[in-house]
C-alpha cells in the first residue's frame, strides 16, 4: 500500500474514562499488558505497508509523544516519510486549538499537500483491532467510491453501547444511505469503526470547503451532509473490534485479551503489534505463586495469587496478596496480604499491606496513577 498514507485522530476527550485519561490522550491509554491503544492502529498501518503516518493529537499528548518518539519501534523512523505528530499550535493565521476532526486535518493541510500518496486512510487511535487495510483499499477501488467507511456488525455490543457509535444504513449495493452519530435509538447493529478511505485530492478539497463554511467535523459536517452528493460505501470489517471510550468498555475489552481466540487474532495472525520496548528482564515466579488465566508482562515479580487478571510490566505481587479480575498497570506494587477484585490500578500504584479494594464487574474501581492506597 505504498500509494496510501495514514492519518490517526487521537485527541478527543472521553470523560467516561475518568482518571484513566485525565492525564493522557485516550490513544495513549495502556492496554493489554504492554501496549498503548494507538499501537493497534499504527501497527495495522505498518503491517499494511503504509510508511507515511500523521498523528493528530490534542488533549494531554505528552505521554503519547513520549510513547511514539521518532517512530522507530514501528519502523517509521524514515529518511523520507515516516511518523509525524501534529499537536495544535498557535500561529498568526488563526490556527490553534483543533475544533474538530476536519479542523485538525485542515490545520495540517500542508502535510496532506506535500505527501504524494494517492489515497489517505483515516482512523481513530483508540480502537483495538487487527485490520488488513490493503483489502479495504481494493474494495474502495472496486466500487469506485468517493469515501469508503469501514463498518462492523456489532452483534457483541449491548444496545446501550451501540448508541455511543455511528450507526449506518446501507442499500443493497453497500452504499451508505444513512449515518447517525451516537443515536439515542440505534436502528440497527451496523456501526462505523471509524476507519475511512478517501482519495487525497478529494480529501483536501472537502476539507477546504468544510472550513470555508465554518464547519469542523469530518463525520458530521462532511460525510453526513454529503451522503447524497458523494458516493460513500460501506466496507464490512468482520474481525474483533472495540473502541475504548469508557471505564466499563476498557475493562471488558482488556478482559477479552484472556480469550485465546481474540489473542490469536490480534497478536499472532497477519502481522505483529509493535510498541515501545522497556528492556525488562523476564517475569519471575516464586514458590508461592498461583497464577491462572492471566496475562503477565516482563519484569513482573510474583509471589501471590493472580487470577483472571492482566499484569503490565514490572508489577510486584507479594506473598499472600490476591488479585482477581483486575488490571494492574506498569510498576504497581501489591504488598503482602493485600487483595484486589474488579480493580484497575494505573501506573505505579502501591497497594499497601493488607489493604483490600473491590469493585464490580460493571463498575470496576479505578485507582489513579502514583497513588498509595
Amino acid at each position, binding site marked *: 500500500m505504498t500509494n496510501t498514507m495514514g492519518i490517526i485522530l487521537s485527541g478527543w476527550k472521553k470523560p467516561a474514562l475518568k482518571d484513566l485519561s485525565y492525564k493522557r490522550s485516550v490513544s495513549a491509554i495502556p492496554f493489554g499488558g504492554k501496549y498503548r491503544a494507538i499501537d493497534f492502529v499504527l501497527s495495522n498501518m505498518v503491517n499494511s505497508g503504509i510508511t507515511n503516518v500523521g498523528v493528530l493529537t490534542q488533549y494531554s499528548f505528552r505521554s503519547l509523544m513520549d510513547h511514539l518518539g521518532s517512530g522507530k519501534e514501528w519502523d517509521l523512523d524514515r529518511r523520507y516519510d515516516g511518523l509525524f505528530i501534529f499537536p495544535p499550535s498557535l500561529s498568526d493565521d488563526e490556527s490553534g486549538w483543533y475544533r474538530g476532526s476536519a479542523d485538525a486535518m485542515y490545520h495540517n493541510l500542508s502535510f496532506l499537500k506535500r505527501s504524494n500518496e494517492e489515497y489517505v486512510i483515516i482512523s481513530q487511535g483508540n480502537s483495538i483491532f487487527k485490520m488488513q487495510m490493503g483489502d479495504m483499499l481494493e474494495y474502495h477501488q472496486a466500487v469506485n467510491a468517493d469515501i469508503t467507511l469501514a463498518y462492523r456488525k456489532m452483534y457483541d455490543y449491548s444496545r446501550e453501547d451501540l448508541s455511543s457509535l455511528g450507526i449506518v444504513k446501507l442499500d443493497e449495493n453497500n452504499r451508505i444511505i444513512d449515518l447517525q452519530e451516537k443515536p439515542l435509538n440505534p436502528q440497527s447493529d451496523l456501526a462505523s469503526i471509524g476507519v475511512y478511505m478517501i482519495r487525497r485530492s478529494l480529501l483536501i478539497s472537502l476539507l477546504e470547503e468544510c472550513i470555508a463554511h465554518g464547519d469542523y467535523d469530518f463525520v458530521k459536517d462532511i460525510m453526513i451532509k454529503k451522503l447524497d452528493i458523494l458516493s460513500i460505501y460501506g466496507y464490512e470489517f468482520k474481525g474483533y473490534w472495540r473502541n475504548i471510550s469508557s471505564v466499563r468498555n476498557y475493562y471488558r475489552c482488556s478482559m477479552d485479551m484472556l480469550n*485465546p481466540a481474540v489473542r490469536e487474532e*490480534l497478536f499472532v495472525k497477519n502481522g505483529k503489534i509493535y510498541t515501545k520496548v522497556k528492556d525488562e528482564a*523476564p517475569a519471575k515466579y516464586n514458590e508461592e505463586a498461583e497464577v*491462572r*488465566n492471566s496475562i503477565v508482562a516482563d519484569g513482573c515479580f510474583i509471589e501471590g495469587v493472580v487470577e483472571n487478571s492482566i499484569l503490565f510490566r514490572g508489577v510486584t505481587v507479594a506473598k499472600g496478596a490476591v488479585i482477581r479480575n483486575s488490571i494492574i498497570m506498569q510498576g504497581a506494587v501489591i504488598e503482602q496480604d493485600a487483595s484486589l477484585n474488579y480493580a484497575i490500578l494505573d501506573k505505579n500504584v502501591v497497594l499497601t499491606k493488607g489493604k483490600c479494594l473491590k469493585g464490580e464487574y460493571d463498575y470496576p474501581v479505578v485507582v489513579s496513577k502514583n497513588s498509595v492506597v
Partner: protein
Amino acid sequence: MVKKQIIAMLLAGGQGSRLGVLTKKAAKPAVLYGGKYRIIDFSLSNCINSGIDTVGILTQYQPLKLNNHIGIGKPWDMDRMNGGVTILSPYMKEDSGEWYKGTANAISQNIDYVDKMAPKYVIILSGDHIYKMNYSEMLKFHVKSNAEATISVIDVPYEDASRYGIMNTEPDGRIYEFEEKPKKPKSTLASMGVYIFTWEILREYLIRDDQKADSSHDFGKDVIPAMLSDGRRMYAYKFQGYWKDVGTIQAFWESNMDLVKRVPEFNLYDPDWKIYTPNPVKPPHYVAPTGSVKTSVVAEGCMIYGKVRNSVLFPGVYVEKGALIENSIVMSNSHVAEGCVLDHCIIGEDVIVGKGVNIGVGENIPNEDKPGIYNSGITVVGEGARIPEGTVIGKNVMIDMHVLPEDFCSDRIPSGSSIYKGGERE
C-alpha cells in the same frame, strides 16, 4: 571528533566447544541465556553502563547469529555517529589473509581500528561470561595506580584455583607473577579475562608478539608474561560479585538455575544496571486456567497450559495442557505438547516435542560419544529438532540440531546415547 578515553575490544570468536550442540552453529557469546538474553549481552551492557560507547567485536567462529543479534548496536544504544559497535571479522590483506590465530593476534590484526579511534586506554573483554561490572571503576584504578596493564581478578576457592590463570601480587595489588593453571596455586586470585591496557604500550607488545614464530598469540600465555618479564607496571583489580564462566553444559544449566532462586545471587532486575538485548515483538505471556508456574523465569509470548517448575522459559514457548517441565531451560519458540514430562534438560530454539515425550529418565550414564561434554545428567536437544510422540529419553542424551522423527530408530533412547541428523554420527 571527540577523542575517546577508552574503547573496548570484545573477543567473541570462541566456539565454546564444551557447550556441545548449543554451539554447533553459534559462537559461545551468541548462546541464549536467562530467558531473554545472549551471553554477549552482559559484556555489552556492562560497556554502555560504564560509559564505554565504542566497542570492536571480534568474531570468527559461526558469526551469523551474533551479527544478526548485534546489528548496528541499537539495543545497547551503540548506533552512534562517532564510535558505537563495529564487527571486526578476519579479512584478506594485500598478499595474504588469515584467521585470528589467538586472542592477542585478533587485536593486533585490528590495530588500524584502534588507532583510528585513538584512545588512551583499551579494555579487552571476552563475550563468554555472566557478570555485571563497572569498568569505569577499574579504569579509575588503572589510572590511579599509574599502571600499564590492569587485570581484573576474582577470588576463587583454593581447590578451583588450578583451573584458572592465577595472579600473584604484592600487597598493593602489583602483579609479580602470573601462572596459567598452576598445580600448586600460590594465591586464589583468578584472571577474569578482563584487561585494561594503556594502548601505546599494548600496541608495542602486540607487534612484537606477532613477530615471534613460537608464540601462541594469546594474552594469558604470551603477552602478559612478556610484559611481566619486562617489569611493566601491572596491577590486579579485585572484582567482587557474581561472575560465571558458563563454558560447560553443567555450568550453563546451573547459572540459569541461579536465576530462579528466591533471591537470585545475580539480579537482572536492577534498574540502575539494566541488561540490554533486542526485544522480541511478542505480547506478554499467558498462563491458562490449566497452567501453573512456580519458581521460574518466564519471558514474553509464552503460552502456558501445563505446569512449569524451576525452569527458565524463553520468548514464545508453548506448553500444552498436562505437560510438566521441571529443572529445565526451554529456548525461544519451542513447543512442548500434551502430556510431556521434561526434567533436567536444555531444549534449543524452535524444537517441537511431541505428545507424551518423557525426557530425563533412568540412570546418570555419561554420553557414549562425548563423555567430556554430556556428563552431568542433563539432556540437550539441539535447535529445530522434532521429537516424535511418546519417545522416552534418558539422561546425558544429545539430540542433534534439526533431527526429524525418522532419525529416531526407537521410542526408547537410553541414557548416554545420541541421535544424529540422518541417523549417522559425525
